[in-house]
Structure formats: structure tokens, C-alpha cells
């Protein structure tokens, strides 16, 4: 009974969310481009890129949720896949600068010129073509995730151990990308982008288009994830999350399942990174910082892991809060952020969306059963530790 309710409401929520995203993809750019700046409904460009950024974060959180919420793999290195996707896109954008760089070198990016590089390193070949870069955005994070996951899942590295080595992975990548000898611009990363697919990257139209692309990518990923989660494969994921040995003894190759989910998730993170970079205008090794990956986990937890809408809501809530607090209470916002994490883990272990869904489901069930129980459900829900 409850399940059928949940399943139905879940499907409905996803449909609504996808519809909202599609609507946003049309309306926001329209309001930004077609209304006058003083029009009450005008969306300033500042907001467009800000929310565009949030949407890519939401996509990253959704990707993490697929492996954490549904598969029980707490990756503390997901920002690495995001950054790898971002770098692939950044390399394309760097190549698009062409001879317009400070030194006017048609082939080499500026940072290579002033560090006396004579030739373009081999791994920069092909990135002048968008299709190639777009392919790499998906393939590179996917490949890294595949290789890493193949080793890790095969040897059954689990739980905390897995979390720690994913952290080691992103930390190693961070250090590697910091190295100027790597040929990715060192600490400064890739920046000074001029245009994307021939459009000026700073133009309002391009920003609006990037926003729309982010919204579409998120909607698309939502549909895909929802499909995965809703399939029998998704059920196996949840099964192995809750009882891994049991799943093995039923004849499922748990490592293949995990590897597939992990790789798909890394690819989604890569897409998010690729959309993020043109909107913020820079990609640098700071994105690999372990703290960033932990933050993604926190967005997901705040929104509600194991739900598909949760990570999206969480990413937007936390980042929106961060935007507001860093401007309004610059000295104290870390207290607010830190406090939020503590409070959410203590009082909302299912996250905002998870708690709401849980609550709704129980309320409906209770209402269906007997009106009398209604109050009691509320009481139980209000007791914070009662959850889970």
C-alpha cells in the first residue's frame, strides 16, 4: 500500500520536477533577454549565471546520490569527476581562444607561452573540436571512475575504506593538477575564455543558453536516473546497499553493478562540470579539493539521499544559503553552514525532501487507516530521533 503510494508520488514528483526544469529552461532566458532591465519580471544576468551554476551543482549532487543514496557508496571524491569534465571543457575553451591570447600564439595557451613551452602536449590535441571535447567530458571521468572502481569493487573495498580512498584519489589528482609540469595551467587553471561554439561567452544570450542547457541536462539526467532507479537494476542497487552479501548470494555480481552505477554517476558529474566551467569562467585544481567533495555529500544529505529530488533541492538550498550568507554575514556564515550540517544530521537524517516524503506517506496512510492516529503520527515525526 505504502509502496504503491510512494511509487506513484515518486513518479509524479519526478514528472513535475522535469516539467519545472523544462519550463525554467524556456522562461528564465526569455525573461532575461526579452524584458527590459527595469521590468518587474526581468531576471538579471547575474541571477541567470548564478542559478545556472546551482543547476550544475544540483546535477553533481544527483550524480552522487545515485551512488550514495541508492548504492551505498559514499564517494568523497565526486568533485574529481566534476573537475575532470570541467577541465575537458576548459581545454576546448582554451583552444577556442586561438590567437586572441595575450601573446597572440595561435596554438599554445598563454600559460604555456610564458612558461616557455614550445609545443602543444599530445593530450591537448583534438580539443579544438567541440565534438571531441564533448566526448572527453563524458569519457575521461567515466574512464577514471571505471578503472578506479574496477580495482576497488573487485577487491571489495567497502564503506569507510572506500570513502577514504576516493578521498585519496581526489587529493592525488589535486596535487597532480597543481603541478605546472602537468600542462593544465597549474594553480591558475584554465581561464580567459573567449567563446564557445562561436558565441561570445560573456554575452547575455550565451549565458541564457548555458542556463537552458544546464536545466535541460539536469532534466535529462533526472529522467535517466529515475529510469535506472526504477528498473530492476535500481532495485538491485538498493538491495546491495542494504544487504550486500545477500545480494551476492542471490547470484548478482555486486562489483559489476556498483561499477556501472559509479561510472554512470561519474559521467553525469563530468557533464555537470563541463556546463559549470563556461558559466563561472574558470577551472582550476581547487575543484579537486577534498573539501569540495565533502560539500557535495552535504548538499545531498541536506536535501535527502535516496530520493531523486532531494539532492537537487539540497544543492540549491545550501548554495543559495551560501550566496546569501557570504554577502550578508561574511564573518559568521561558516557558523551557519557548520551548524546546518550538524542540525541536519541530527534532526533530519533523511534530509528535507526525504523527511517530507516520509511524512506525507505516513500521513496518507494514517488518514486512510483511521483519522484518530493522525495526531500520533505527527507526534512521532516531531520527535527527531525517532526517524530511521
Amino acid at each position, binding site marked *: 500500500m505504502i509502496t504503491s503510494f510512494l511509487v506513484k508520488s515518486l513518479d509524479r514528483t519526478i514528472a513535475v520536477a522535469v516539467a519545472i526544469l523544462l519550463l525554467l529552461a524556456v522562461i528564465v532566458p526569455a525573461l532575461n533577454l526579452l524584458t527590459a532591465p527595469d521590468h518587474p519580471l526581468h531576471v538579471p544576468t547575474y541571477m541567470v549565471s548564478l542559478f545556472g551554476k546551482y543547476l550544475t551543482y544540483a546535477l553533481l549532487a544527483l550524480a552522487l546520490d545515485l551512488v550514495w543514496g541508492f548504492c551505498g557508496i559514499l564517494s568523497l571524491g565526486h568533485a574529481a569527476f566534476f573537475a575532470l569534465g570541467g577541465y575537458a571543457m576548459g581545454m576546448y575553451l582554451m583552444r577556442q581562444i586561438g590567437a586572441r591570447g595575450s601573446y597572440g600564439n595561435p596554438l599554445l595557451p598563454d600559460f604555456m607561452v610564458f612558461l616557455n613551452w614550445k609545443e602543444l602536449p599530445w593530450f591537448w590535441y583534438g580539443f579544438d573540436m567541440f565534438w571531441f571535447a564533448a566526448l572527453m567530458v563524458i569519457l575521461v571521468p567515466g574512464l577514471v571512475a571505471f578503472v578506479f572502481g574496477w580495482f*576497488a569493487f573487485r577487491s571489495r573495498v567497502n564503506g569507510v575504506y572506500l570513502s577514504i*580512498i576516493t578521498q585519496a584519489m581526489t587529493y592525488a589528482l589535486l596535487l597532480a593538477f597543481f603541478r605546472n609540469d602537468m600542462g593544465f595551467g597549474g594553480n591558475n587553471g584554465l581561464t580567459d575564455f573567449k567563446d564557445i561554439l562561436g558565441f561570445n561567452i560573456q554575452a547575455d544570450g550565451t549565458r541564457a543558453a548555458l542556463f537552458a542547457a544546464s536545466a535541460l541536462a539536469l532534466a535529462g539526467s533526472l529522467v535517466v536516473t529515475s529510469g535506472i532507479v526504477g528498473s530492476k537494476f535500481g532495485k538491485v542497487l538498493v538491495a546491495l546497499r542494504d544487504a550486500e*552479501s545477500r545480494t551476492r548470494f542471490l547470484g548478482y555480481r555486486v562489483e559489476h553493478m556498483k561499477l556501472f552505477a559509479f561510472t554512470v554517476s561519474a559521467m553525469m558529474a563530468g557533464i555537470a562540470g563541463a556546463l559549470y566551467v563556461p558559466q563561472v569562467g574558470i577551472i582550476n585544481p581547487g575543484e579537486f579539493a577534498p573539501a569540495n567533495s565533502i560539500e557535495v555529500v552535504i548538499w545531498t544529505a541536506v536535501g535527502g539521499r535516496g530520493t531523486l529530488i532531494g539532492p537537487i533541492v539540497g544543492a540549491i538550498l545550501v548554495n543559495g544559503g551560501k550566496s546569501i550568507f557570504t554577502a550578508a554575514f561574511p564573518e559568521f556564515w561558516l*557558523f551557519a553552514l*557548520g551548524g546546518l550540517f550538524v542540525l541536519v544530521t541530527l534532526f533530519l537524517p533523511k534530509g528535507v525532501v526525504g523527511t517530507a516524503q516520509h511524512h506525507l506517506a505516513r500521513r496518507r496512510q494514517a488518514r486512510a487507516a483511521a483519522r484518530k492516529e493522525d495526531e500520533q503520527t505527527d507526534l512521532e515525526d516531531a520527535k527527531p530521533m525517532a526517524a530511521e
Partner: protein
Amino acid sequence: MYRIIQTVLAMLFLFAAMPQGLRAAEGLRNLVNALGEAKLSAMDEHIAALAKTGEPEVVAILDALGAGNLYARKTDGQVFLTKESGSNLALIDPISGESAGETPKAAMSKIKVNNSVRRAVRAALGGLTLLSPDRAQRLKAAQSVLQTPDVDALDAVENALVAEKDEAVRTVLEQARAAMLLASDRPIEEKKEAVRLLRENGGREALPVLSAALGSAENGLEQDIEAAIASIEQAQEFWNAGQNVWYGLSLGSVLLLAAIGLAITFGVMGIINMAHGEMVMLGAYTTFLVQDVVRTSFPHLFEWSLAIALPLAFLFTGTVGLVLERGVIRFLYGRPLETLLATWGISLILQQSVRTIFGPTNREVGNPFWMSGAFEPGGLTITWNRLWIIVFALAVFAALLFLLKKTPMGLQMRAVTQNRRMASSMGIRTPLVDALTFALGSGIAGIAGVALSQIDNVSPNLGQGYIIDSFMVVVFGGVGNLWGTLVGAFSLGILNKFLEPYAGAVLGKILVLVLIILFIQKRPRGLFALKGRAVEA
């Protein structure tokens, strides 16, 4: 140059007309006052002139000059030795050594010194104190003569050698003599003998002397010098390996200190304690506070400040840990991954609190004298602070091992972590034990902070730098096994230090991380895994 000689000559001429004793004193005063007007580039000659007088007062004057305590009075150009006295300067007459009252700083101008002046002072002092009755001073003098060998001082060194009885001082003096000999115009036999001496006794310090001599060496000596250099370099190779082991041990001890508290909170209790680094930081700040109070109120206790800080840091961070456990963590047992989120939040709050209270900048924590400097057994250089940190890390480890294995408290802790329900039904108050275990882990992180404050920044970011490494150590060593943490810390330290010379610091660190990742694939439960048939469902 010419003008200086002129003034010096003029002064010498003046003295001739004075009675002997007075003349010397007056001459000295003039020479000292001349320092006040001298240009930085001309200081060398002035110092040499002062040293040449050979007067006993010169030692104190040069000492003060080198330390930047020599000031000239703006009104009349008189030069004084000074001591800080509040915002004033206490003046001391350079010749008589008597107090000459106090003046505000603004009325005096400092006699500027730079490195070349300090070098000149060092050389001059070396020559002057070679015959000092104090052994320590003679040794220092001999060493400084060795550091800046000057052919002119050859006679002085040879004189000193005749009188010197102390073996250690003799060795240094002989080396200094050999170094000077090489630059002199003595016969080649003596030089060959000098090269042989340097080759036998000299470590790395002999290399610059020999390579400098190589440039101007006459025929027949060159091969000797080259052979000597090759032999010393070969010996250095051997010592380098030893030095690397030492560096590795030292890095390992730092890792051990950083990780050992985590081995309790994470390893034993299973809490992914992201606030662990902040506990270390709080320990370091406790040290800062203690030193601050000691400096202002009990300056004579400064050498003991670390000893005072240890228990305080343990108590303070332990209490913070206790509060955290009771306030937050106890609600999260059995949900290890969620402890990660909550403790991450706590770490943000702690960092920002410290930033708000103490400011974002580094705070100064001083090294007591017994943790400063280095000694050199053979070709190694062992710094005292690193040595003490290794000793301290091992002591903390031993104490913790003892506590866990041999005391009732430790027994209860192990019982609770192994089987909570059973322990509880046997009358152990599990919540109390949990709280105390967490407090213990935090307290140990705090005392690690005391030690780390000696080698690292004391800033709100201190903890961040150690947290990932700490987790790596605990996971690499094997969760729940203290010995694993010990072995893990030292092997990672040594590995890192052996990779560093070949791969560089950055690549070395990356390689270590990759190796840890690969190692975990091979042994998913770390170096010292607890094996068992426990069926996890």
C-alpha cells in the same frame, strides 16, 4: 677605503701624544664612535681596526654590534651598548661598561648591520676569543674561524693550537688551520698534509674549502684535492641514506602524532571524525595561550611552557571532545557516514571560532632552547626538535597502549567497542565509556597539537593540513589496531622521504597516495587487519 685609512691614521697619530692607558681607552672610544658614522660598505674595515686593538672590551662591543644593540646618540654621535627597557633604551658605556642612564628610543639611532657586517663581526670575534679561558667560547671561536677561514688569521690559529688542550676544540682548530693553509703560500708538503687532514676529519664542511682550493691549486696538489673531494662525497652518499631514514622517521613521528588520536576516535570507535584536525589545532592554540601567559607573567618558566601546556591541552581538548560526544556524536552511533557530516560541520565551526577569537593570522609559539638547533653525529644532522618529537610520539603511543591494554578503563573501552550490548549487560556504563573514549582520542589529538606547534604554523588552518594524512595512516595501518597506526605512520614517512629526492616533493606525495590506493585494493582492511569469520549481512 682611502678615507678610512686616513681617519685611522689620524687617530693613531693623535694617540701618540697621550699617556699609554688613557690613550688606549680614548683610541678605542674614537674607533667605537666611528662606527656610528660608518657606511655599511665600510664597516668591515672599522671592525678589523677594532679587533686589531686586541682590547678585552672589544668583544662586548662587537657582540652588541652583531646583535643590533649598538646605538649612536643623535645629538653627539656617542655610541653606546643598549638594552631594551620598556619603550626606552638603557645605555651602557662601551669602554667602562657602566650604566649611562636611559633615553627614549627616538633619541638614538641604531647602527645598521647586514650580513656582511655580521660575518665580519663573527670572524673578528673568532680571532679575539681563540684564547679565551672559557672552553665553550673557544669552541665557538674555533668554529667561526673554520666557517670563514682567513689566511691572515693563520698565525693566530697556530698559536692557539699550541696552547689548546681540549680535544674537541683542537680538532676544529686543526681543520681551520688546514683550510687556511690551503689558501696560503706555504709549501706544498704542508698543503698535502692539510688535504689529508680535511679528507679524514672533514664532513660536508670540508667540501667548500676543498673546492675553493681546487681553483687555485698548484700542480701536484690537484689530484690530492680531487681524490679528497671524491672520498668525502662517497662518504656523504652513505650518510645521505641514513639521513633519509632519519627524515622518514621524523616525518613518520609527525604522522603518528597526528593520527594517533584518530586511531582512537575513528579506529576504535568508528567515528569518521573530520573535526580531528581541529582538535590538534586547539591543542596548538592552548600552547600559544600558555606561552603567552608565561611570557607576560612568569618569564622564568618559559623553558617549561611546553610541559605546562601538555596537561592543559589534554584537558581542554578532552573536554571539548566530551562535550561534542555528549552533544552530537552519541546520537549518531551506528551511522558512521553521518558522523562524517556532523563532525565536518563541527570542524567548520571550530575553525571559524578560533579565527574570530585569535584572528586569522599565525600565532607565534616559541621553541624552548632544548628544542632548538641540531647536533651532528657522524655525517648526520639531527635537529633537537625532531628528535624530541619522535621521542614524544613514541611515549604517547606507549602510554596509550598501556592505558588500553593494562588498565580497567582500557578494558572497559575495548569491551564496549567489541560488544556493546554484552558490556552493558555486565554493568559497564557504556555511555560514560563512549564519552570518555572520545574525550581520550580528542585529548591525545590536543597533546599532538602541542608538539606540532613546534614545527608548523599555529593558525586556524593547522588541522586541515593533517586530516587527510591522518586518515590515510589509520586506514593504511588497519582500523582498530594501534600497532598498525604506528607501523603505518613510520612506513609512510620513510617511503615519502625516499621518494622525495628522486621524484620531488609533489610527485612523491602523489606516488604515496597512489600506492596507498593500490595497497588498499590488495588488503582492503589495511596492514594489520583484524581477520575473522564475522558474517556481515
